[in-house]
């Protein structure tokens, strides 16, 4: 009973345990020969869900009902615009990054403006915005796949000391996010808003300002992920963000962040993202189909929330 209590206090344990079990089951197929390659691949691809997931986590931390469904289309638009601006020119890398960030800021502003002005629930507001952003992405480049500048393409696909560069970027962002959450006044604010909006208001916290910045932050991280993904995979595709909609929510939930808000968990996002990648690898390795994979993912999400998140009435 006491051990259960201790584990439930560290909710990220669940995702890390699950990731480790799946990782172990996968490498056992080859008797451990694939350990390094698999870990490297896992880090590479988990990096993107980590970046997107952190943004989504900040929004979910704001409390019940807060969610950003515009993440995939923001990724697509940012990637498309940036690559179009850079036009394979190494000199334009920074302007490309800037335009991606501006895209994120813009989407974030529109998201919160709708939530606030129309007083519609975030789920509907961000959904409507995502349609418009998706159209904008289609309109800007008609689906042409422009190559990233060679430097960026090399950088995003390369490793440093055996660690994928994108994973290092994800780590830097995670540390930054962790710092924001744990060490700064802003981190205290979003946690307070997520626990109780009236209490936060009475404690003198600028509630709207905090939420506004958080929606922007989430969209900016989505744009950054879009920018990196477009460079990594050799060009922006119109559908490149689509799998990150459910992914971003799933990694937050699996990572042990409280869905009721107020409590976020950066390490958990890593465990959950690695798990989400590894579970596909494992089931592919064992030759199991998409159906089983989906069912397992769903059951794991439900079990995690039942074990870690539930409160008896």
């Amino acid at each position, binding site marked *: 009973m006491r051990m259960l209590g201790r584990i439930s206090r560290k909710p990220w344990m669940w995702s890390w345990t699950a990731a480790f079990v799946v990782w172990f089951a996968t490498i056992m197929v080859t008797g451990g020969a694939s350990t390094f390659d698999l870990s490297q691949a896992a880090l590479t*691809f988990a990096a993107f869900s980590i970046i997107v997931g952190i943004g989504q986590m900040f929004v979910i931390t704001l409390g019940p009902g807060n969610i950003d469904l515009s993440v995939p289309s923001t990724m697509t638009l940012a990637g498309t615009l940036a690559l179009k601006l850079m036009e394979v020119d190494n000199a334009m890398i920074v302007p490309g990054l800037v335009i991606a960030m501006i895209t994120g800021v813009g989407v974030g502003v529109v998201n919160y403006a709708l939530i606030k002005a129309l007083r519609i629930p975030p789920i509907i507001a961000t959904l409507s915005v995502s349609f418009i952003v998706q159209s904008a992405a*289609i309109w800007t480049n008609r*689906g042409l*796949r422009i190559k990233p500048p060679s430097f960026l393409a090399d950088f995003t696909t390369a490793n440093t000391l055996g660690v994928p560069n994108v994973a290092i970027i994800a780590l830097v962002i995670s540390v930054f996010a962790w710092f924001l959450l744990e060490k700064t006044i802003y981190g205290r604010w979003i946690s307070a808003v997520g626990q109780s909006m009236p209490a936060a208001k009475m404690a003198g916290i600028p509630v709207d300002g905090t939420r506004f910045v958080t929606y922007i932050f989430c969209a900016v991280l989505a744009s950054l992920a879009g920018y990196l993904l477009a460079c990594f995979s*050799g060009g922006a595709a119109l559908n490149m963000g689509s799998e990150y909609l459910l992914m971003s929510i799933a990694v937050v939930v699996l990572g042990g962040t409280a869905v009721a808000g107020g409590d976020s968990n950066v390490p958990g996002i890593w465990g959950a993202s690695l798990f989400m990648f590894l579970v596909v690898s494992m089931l592919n390795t064992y030759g199991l189909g998409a159906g089983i994979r989906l069912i397992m993912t769903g059951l794991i999400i439900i079990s995690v929330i039942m074990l870690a998140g539930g409160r008896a009435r």
Partner: protein
Amino acid sequence: MTIRKMLLASVAVACAAMPVSALADTSGKKIALSNNYAGNSWRQAMLTSWEKVTGEAVKAGVVAAADAFTTAENQATEQAAQIQNMILQGYDAIVLNAASPTALNGAVKEACDAGITVVSFDGIVTEPCAWRIAVDFKEMGRSQVEYLSKKLPQGGNLLEIRGLAGVFVDDEISAGIHEGVKQFPQFKIAGSVHGDWAQDVAQKAVAGILPSLPEIAGVVTQGGDGYGAAQAIAAAKRPMPIIVMGNREDELKWWQQQKEANGYETMSVSIAPGVSTLAFWVAQQILDGKEVKKDLVVPFLRIDQDNLEQNLANTQAGGVANVEYAQEDAIKVIEAAK
């Protein structure tokens, strides 16, 4: 209904006897394109080709209108609604790239009942009243293994990259590949992943399964995923197997670079997005009163080692290798099917 069919048939017979120029006029006819998805470069190329070819045709007065419609999301239900709207809008023919081979049958039947010619291509429908311009997807899959068997007579392990789970085309190509493996038993499919016809998804999936696979001799694909596979394999620092390519520009370009660097050899099979224009002309010919068989076959686009550069030169940067069709091509295909 039957009377009308008989009438139509007799008209067609009568017309067939006459020279082409004397056929019924289609300048007053309106044709619509029903498209279920616009989210990748292939579909965008398809729409661009349609716009280009039909734009000229409209200008030349061959048809009155040729409008393209795309659904907001890739869903059969939405496309069914779109087709129903087209019926209301009074189009004479609907050219259709279907989200599902069967789920649109209800809507297609309604269109046929309203006297509308329905020509499906790429994603074809099974409703008997519609025309089908089909690519032999099974053959597309089988021919990949056949090609590999010539390059690698001793056989080896294959990695299969599939498309989107639960979609008809994916199932067909995969079935063809498995047929090919049965035919050339020296090959064995060592692993299979879903790449959703997207480079990034394929890259991710391949990178995930690769560590647990033995040496791979060849990668059989469905198009749109070859470059992603190549990137994943290069990142894992594995010997590069023969990856059967699709028709995206980045795939072809990568192939060309490898060819120049180390004489890498492979081939590419795909469907040209310009098949939409063939479907347009077929629809026009049907409206014109031509007798056309319900099932037409269009060859898939194959690029080989020697015509790679030529194809690449014709492909827009970031685009898709493509072939656009003219009226004569359509007539040829129709004649060939007779």
